[in-house]
């Protein structure tokens, strides 16, 4: 570790009597990548907000290069060289790329007038430092999430940042985009920038961390060099218990398919996709973002009408044109974006859980039976082990993991026969992840057919007994339970997901040799 740039001493803060951080001591060295690890609510984000001047600590201090920055507001922290890239990126959707990047710098310079040429020059310079090219005049709202991330980084760099905080920067990125981001982070480090990286994805943490500091319930639980830990010990320190993902094995002896997809296609999305889903199957649908996975799931849920092929449920061909029809066929979908598509954030847990089954909660005079609704909601929070058992809590006030438990719980209340989960654990900490996996296994074991969409090999391996790899809209490869049990399968799957092109070539080469009659 180089000379310490940031030193936090005895930092404490409490909100309404609840201690969010308790006497935290830590330092961050020059040109160091420090990973802050911890479950949701462990105090990582609170720490970031104190350093960046958003919160004032109740005790203790934060100093950068020996001078205190706590309790003096965001601009003081920015002047001292603190830059934060929040999880939501905090960009201005209505403004141009150039303006988003340059605004910080121009405000800091105290300019009163705006010169487009200067704005564009600042933006171009910072993007060059990140090593990417983006259309300067386009609105930020038109960019992909990965490119928005780069705009946020470029904006942060424009301020001669000394310490860059990145709060869960990779949740919305695909595997290849994550690789590019991590590469940029390492380059920034080599230029002497200190980086504090917050992520739930342990493989990313180990890929770049020099040092790992673990928070749990507002306490610092440890301060390690990356070499001192592995995924298992890190998980243990974060949760206080041993976390291991049990693997799923299908034990149902019934080969009749619940759902058959035959030659299904939708122009521009995916083509010629076929598979069967039996009772108790957990089918993994994997591949990079843009491979057509989500588009396929939306078709099964009536939101993206296919233009070729057919869907059979219980052996009968069906046409699914709306979510309501999908639900009538016993299909449930946990969407990719739970905040905007999975939940009513400003409503209570009670209302969210009952929203899917409101018909069955009607009493004699077609009014909602409040008692039945209450007992359903109470049963759901207990069954799903939502940490807050008060069913009148607004869903938006729950952590990501607990929100997802509510989404899954509300679908279970409908007793679906086919359950599709799109990226079910994005942005969710490992403790909740384990619980959600257990829940998926129980559902499948009870005879439901489950489809899990994910680009995390670990998630696929832990949950699925069959896997379909998609690439550019077609099924690239498929694996059965026997394949999945092979010892090296996880690495093999990871390679295919991250570099599907190579796999395509490999497969084509194999096919050519077969065609030429070479039996090897």
């Amino acid at each position, binding site marked *: 570790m180089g000379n310490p740039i940031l030193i936090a001493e005895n930092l404490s803060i409490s909100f309404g009597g609840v201690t969010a951080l308790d006497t935290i001591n830590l330092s961050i060295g020059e040109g160091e990548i420090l990973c802050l690890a911890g479950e949701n609510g462990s105090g990582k984000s609170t720490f970031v907000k104190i350093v960046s001047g958003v919160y004032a600590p109740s005790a203790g201090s934060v100093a950068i290069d020996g001078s205190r920055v706590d309790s003096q507001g965001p601009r003081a922290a920015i002047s001292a060289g603190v830059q934060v890239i929040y999880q939501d990126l*905090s960009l*201005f*959707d209505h403004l141009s790329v150039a303006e988003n990047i340059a605004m910080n710098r121009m405000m800091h310079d105290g300019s*009163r007038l705006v010169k487009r040429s200067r704005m564009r020059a600042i933006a171009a310079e910072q993007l060059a430092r990140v090593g990417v090219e983006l259309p300067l005049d386009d609105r930020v709202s038109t960019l992909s999430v990965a490119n928005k991330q780069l705009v946020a980084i470029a904006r942060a760099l424009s301020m001669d940042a000394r310490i860059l905080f990145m709060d869960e920067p990779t949740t919305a990125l695909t595997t290849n985009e994550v690789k590019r981001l991590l590469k940029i982070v390492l380059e920034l480090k080599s230029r002497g920038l200190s980086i504090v990286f917050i992520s739930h994805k342990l493989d990313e943490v180990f890929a770049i961390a020099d040092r790992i500091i673990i928070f749990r319930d507002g306490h610092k639980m440890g301060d390690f060099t990356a070499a001192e830990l592995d995924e298992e010990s890190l998980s243990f320190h974060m949760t206080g218990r041993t976390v291991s993902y049990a693997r799923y094995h299908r034990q149902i002896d019934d080969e009749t398919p619940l759902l058959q997809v035959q030659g299904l296609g939708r122009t521009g999305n995916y083509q010629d996709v076929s598979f069967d889903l039996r009772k108790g199957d957990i089918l993994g649908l994997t591949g990079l973002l843009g491979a057509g996975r989500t588009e396929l799931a939306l078709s099964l849920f009536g939101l993206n009408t296919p233009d070729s092929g057919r869907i059979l449920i219980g052996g009968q061909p069906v046409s699914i044109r709306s979510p309501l029809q999908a639900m009538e066929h016993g299909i449930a979908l946990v969407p990719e974006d739970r905040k905007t598509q999975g939940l009513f954030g400003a409503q209570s847990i009670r209302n969210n859980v009952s929203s899917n089954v409101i018909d069955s909660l009607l009493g004699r005079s077609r009014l909602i039976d409040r008692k039945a609704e209450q007992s359903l909601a109470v049963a759901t929070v207990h069954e799903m082990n939502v940490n807050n058992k008060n069913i009148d809590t607004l869903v938006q006030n729950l952590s990501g993991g607990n929100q997802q438990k509510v989404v899954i719980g509300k679908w279970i209340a409908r007793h679906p026969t086919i359950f599709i989960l799109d990226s079910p654990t994005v942005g969710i900490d490992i403790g909740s992840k384990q619980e959600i996996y257990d829940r998926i296994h129980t559902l499948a074991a009870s005879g439901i057919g489950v489809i899990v969409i994910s680009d995390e090999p670990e998630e696929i391996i832990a949950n699925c007994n069959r896997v379909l790899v998609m690439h550019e809209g077609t099924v690239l490869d498929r694996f059965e339970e026997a394949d999945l049990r092979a010892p090296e399968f996880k690495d093999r799957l990871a390679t295919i997901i991250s570099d599907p092109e190579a796999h395509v070539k490999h497969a084509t080469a194999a096919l050519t040799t077969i065609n030429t009659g070479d039996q090897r």
Partner: protein
Amino acid sequence: MKTSPFRAVFNRPSTAMEKYLLAIIIGYIVIVALKNPLFFSVETLFDMLRSGSGVMILAIGVLIVLVSGGIDVSFTAIAVVSGYTSVKLMLALGIDNILFAFVVSIVVGCLLGAINALIIYRFNLPTLIVTLGTASAYHGLMATVLGTKSFPTAAMPQSLVNFGSTDLIVINSDTGRYGLTVFLPIVIAVLVLTWFILYRTMLGRQVFAVGSNEESASRLGINIFRTKLFVYAYSGALSGLMGIIYFSELKYVNPVSLVGTELMIIAAVVIGGAKLTGGEGTILGTILGIVVVQLFQSTLVFLGLGSSWNDLFFGAVLLISLGVMYYRQRIQDRKNLVFATA
């Protein structure tokens, strides 16, 4: 690459809404002119410029508030209250000077706007609720303290009457005498000043930033209070300016008029492409929106239609143009499998 003439002038591509409005305006003018050639005259143009000046100034205030992510419904009340206060003060002090009228009215409007900003920021209340409240409160306060006595032309300060009759250019024709109003340079000055503030100063860009995402703006260290104070005080000042222009144009001081037309003006700005969710809106769009309103208001008579058609036409344009815009966006979103806007 060839740049369109529009792009060359405005340094940006035109918005879809601006194109729609321009098409509607041109189409409508052609229809009216065919039906009644009398419409196509300098006097009609001069007449519309005179009667549209005040509304245009108010609309610019509405635009800047909408861009900042708020809705202000108190601007008509502020215009009347500031204008009336100014007139009363002139009569009481015996100062019959148009400059004095403007200064007092603008200062009062600015203060009332600042009070709006203060309440909105301090109590973190929705802007619509606050300005609904202050609109009544300001008007009620004026009525109790200053009364609501109206002044006809003879009884009002003569400088206002004279100012309202001042023309820049006068054209004599066989049907009468028509002049280009002195309000025009004021309106142009307001447009240019507002354009400069919104697009060429950091303050203006911060208004867009706050309207786009207030949380992000405060994380960046943008002073939210200062920005909002500017937005509402500026809108208030424009209302004050309009108050005097309004009384001068009518040559009649009536403190219970104007209030009630605010939704029409907000609708015109929204037709012009400003979004109620903030961060979006253009000056050109606002001008076109107001032109549409004014056109209907002053030309239906040329088509031989009564003034009640005005509301029907305006409502239809509002619903159809916005309906088409949002429907197209929806189709586009569905094609891209976007189901919710965060």
